[in-house]
């Protein structure tokens, strides 16, 4: 479309005006505010503020002017497959340890455990515990499991008001030295609650209420293992 002469003159005059009225170092609205503005979802006052900002800010003016899409394109399918592979399937991450522990009035009961249980100085598998008729454990309980060259040790102690404290140690199996670059993320029913680097060989998760927990362990940004702990109420 050929621009009318008057519009071309306005454009030149505006360019001259803008060169003298643009400012640097302004605080820009965030992406969501700009998107709301473009979708006409802001109040007249909020919208006016954004317009006035855009008039001064070359960067935001540029973003807004590029919002109009003239052509839709579908990317080739191999690119989409590559993008999908950026997030790995959780089921591909090895399940290191799985346990179900019931909290009782003053004790624990281990319902299910793929790890051994540390009792006094003895490390016992759950079936041995059962044959010894140890149904209730009154002291803090430790779950221990070795995966290849890694030792996972989870210490669970009961706090008052049906809350527990969980200390997770991850060590080299033979030297018992803490492993480096390990990060543990705690999920409760699928929602991430906390994430910590292994410090002095351990990570502490405090004041946990009965629920289903999953701990994801990553080393140097790669997920290496996960731990499932169910505390039925």
């Amino acid at each position, binding site marked *: 479309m050929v621009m009318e*002469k*008057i*519009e*071309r*003159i*306005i*454009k*030149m*005059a*505006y*360019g*001259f*005006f*803008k060169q*003298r009225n643009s400012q640097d170092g302004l605080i820009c609205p965030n*992406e*969501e505010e*700009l*998107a*709301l503005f*473009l*979708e*006409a979802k*802001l109040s007249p006052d909020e919208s*006016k503020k954004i*317009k*006035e900002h*855009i*008039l001064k800010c070359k*960067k935001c*003016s*540029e*973003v*807004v*002017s*590029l*919002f*109009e*899409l*003239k*052509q*839709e*394109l*579908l*990317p080739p399918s191999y*690119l*989409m497959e*590559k*993008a*999908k592979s*950026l*997030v*790995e*399937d*959780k*089921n591909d991450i090895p399940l290191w340890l799985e346990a179900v522990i019931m909290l009782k009035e003053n004790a624990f009961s281990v319902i299910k455990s793929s790890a051994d249980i540390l009792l006094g100085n003895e490390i016992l598998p759950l079936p041995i515990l059962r044959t010894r008729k140890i149904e209730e454990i009154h002291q803090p309980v430790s779950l221990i499991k070795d995966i290849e060259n890694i030792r996972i040790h989870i210490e669970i102690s009961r706090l008052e008001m049906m809350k527990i404290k969980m200390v997770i140690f991850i060590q080299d199996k033979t030297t018992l030295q803490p492993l480096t670059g390990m990060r543990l*993320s705690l*999920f409760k029913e699928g929602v*991430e609650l906390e*994430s910590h680097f292994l410090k002095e060989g351990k990570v502490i998760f405090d004041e946990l209420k009965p629920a289903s927990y999953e701990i994801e362990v990553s080393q140097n940004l790669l997920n290496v293992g996960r731990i499932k702990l169910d505390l039925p109420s």
Partner: protein
Amino acid sequence: MDDLEFIRNCIQADKHAWDEFVQRYSRLIYSYIYSVLKEKGINLDTSLVDDLFQDVFLHLIKDDFKKLRQYQGKKNCSFAGWLRVVVINFVLDFLRKKQPRCVSLEEKLDTDTPALKDTLKDERFALSQDIILDEEELKNLSDCIHELDSEDKFFVEMHIYNGMSLENLRAILNISRSAIDMRKQRLIKKLKDCFQSKGFQLEN
């Protein structure tokens, strides 16, 4: 499931949700990368578009989905609307970081954009064959711009200066097509009158 709930599933590295995310938003991401590069006159070789396409996804998920977590869905902001702004910003940042490329005045960047010497001649600052303005005149005319209120300035900036279509601007301003046509006529008349009052002759 609303946008926010869907994005929350993606953030939990739910593989199924992520695959669905890629399926849903690939077209939008790819189209905007292509469109921004084209508007900025960048030579469109597909490997650049392909690389940026992967980089946008990485940008969204790196540091435990830091970028994706910024979407809050406040005031019913659609995820697609947020993502558009993110992609445009991402491509512009990429272009800013790139070393400025030397372009010869004779070189045509692609078939749709004129050579730089033609752009300079009849676009923003310079003079076309039928319009000759000296700096003094331009200053006088820009005084007329200065007198406009911010609504009118915004209209000039978007539609006349940046070339945004009236249809798109109408949607942003949430007004009817006839209202925006009227606003344009009224604004042009206002500026025409002001230009003439500054002694600028507008012959047809």
